[in-house]
């Protein structure tokens, strides 16, 4: 398959899909084209969109790729589409999520030790929003449930994978004052 053709097919698929598509999935659909060729074609496509200052971008999120609008045009999109744009996570939810992200798999007790408050309500809501998932049970008395982040977590925060969030060592508390 021609390089150009490969790129155009990928563009079609990414345009049509309502969720990120992995390189493996794209390569599988196209039958020909190796992992590396597919990856190269996606990256070419990404550059093309950037070079011509497109209103769209090819994002690398949740271990896949998706064609999305650019942030600077959000105002116009919101004029067209109003639903569910105002919802944002609360501070307790964000704090709990960050603990799950860094300490996963983690139990409710471990989260509560760090935050110093009950976490059951927040955990339930995060589960409902599918931002976290139950990854198993810890081999401790009572076999407490272990929580981990989900694919939806990556998608929600626009992360390629977990390595994109800074490590705990890198995080510096804000300058006091």
């Amino acid at each position, binding site marked *: 398959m021609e390089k150009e053709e490969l790129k155009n097919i990928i563009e079609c698929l990414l345009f049509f899909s309502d969720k990120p598509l992995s390189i493996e999935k794209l390569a599988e659909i196209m039958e020909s084209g190796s992992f590396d060729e597919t990856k190269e074609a996606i990256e070419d496509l990404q550059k093309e969109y950037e070079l011509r200052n497109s209103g769209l971008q090819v994002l690398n999120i949740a271990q896949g790729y998706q064609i999305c609008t*650019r942030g600077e045009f959000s105002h116009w999109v919101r004029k067209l589409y109003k639903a569910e744009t105002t919802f944002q996570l609360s501070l307790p939810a964000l704090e709990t999520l960050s603990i799950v992200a*860094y300490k996963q798999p983690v139990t409710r007790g471990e989260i509560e030790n760090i935050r110093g408050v009950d976490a059951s309500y927040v955990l339930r809501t995060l589960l409902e929003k*599918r931002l976290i998932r139950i990854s198993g049970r810890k081999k401790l008395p009572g076999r407490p449930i272990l929580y981990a982040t989900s694919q939806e977590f990556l998608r929600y925060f626009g992360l390629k994978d977990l390595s994109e969030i800074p490590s705990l060592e890198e995080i510096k508390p804000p300058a006091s004052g």
Partner: protein
Amino acid sequence: MDYKNDSGTDYKVRLEVFEGPLDLLLHLVRKNDLDIFNIPIAEITADYLNYIKLFRKLNLDFAGEFLVMASTLIHIKSRMLLPSIETVEEEEAEDPRAALAARLMEYEKFKEAASILKEREVIQKGIYGRLPLLPQDEDYTIEATLFDLLDAFQRVAFRVEKEVREIIQEDIKVEDRIQEILSLLENKRFINFEAIFSGQTTKRLLIVTFLALLELIRSKMVFARQARLFGDIRIYKAKRELVA
């Protein structure tokens, strides 16, 4: 039980003055520009207790954890006042504040991590991907979880709660409802989740029906599926009915 329909509203339940005792303590440390490893425990305890008094005065709901922290602070304070027995033998006795300082440090890191996530959330909110297309019948492939079922049930129950005024005593068994759900599915591949509850006007009846549905799912006689996350739920009849 609280049947809230709008899933967005129950995120913030209480006035978010401080997330918890550690949050308050951290605020006091930062406000007064204190060294986290050398906290003047007497002052900070007084400060902390003043806040608790203020919460009371303002009639704010605060969790019991705030009081636990107050007692921890007082405990540390008393340990620092008393001469330690071990100091004679051990050169460096452990600072009673060390454990608290470590907790504060760790908590502050996660607070910062949360604000990094917050920034990403704001950016990501302005970026839109394609919306899911209208689901086709063969798209109903996602197994609905218990949470999805509970959500859907809450929506049904919420609606009924508004409409019903009369209370009628009735005797209804889960087994009967199981048979009725199965008969609804007769000659059909699926029915909508809501359809199972249609015409049911009491909470008791709704709950019994819901239990019947859960039992059917558990015994794999029916499947609950959706086309996308948070989408409508359809109840499908199992291809081959399992004989108990």
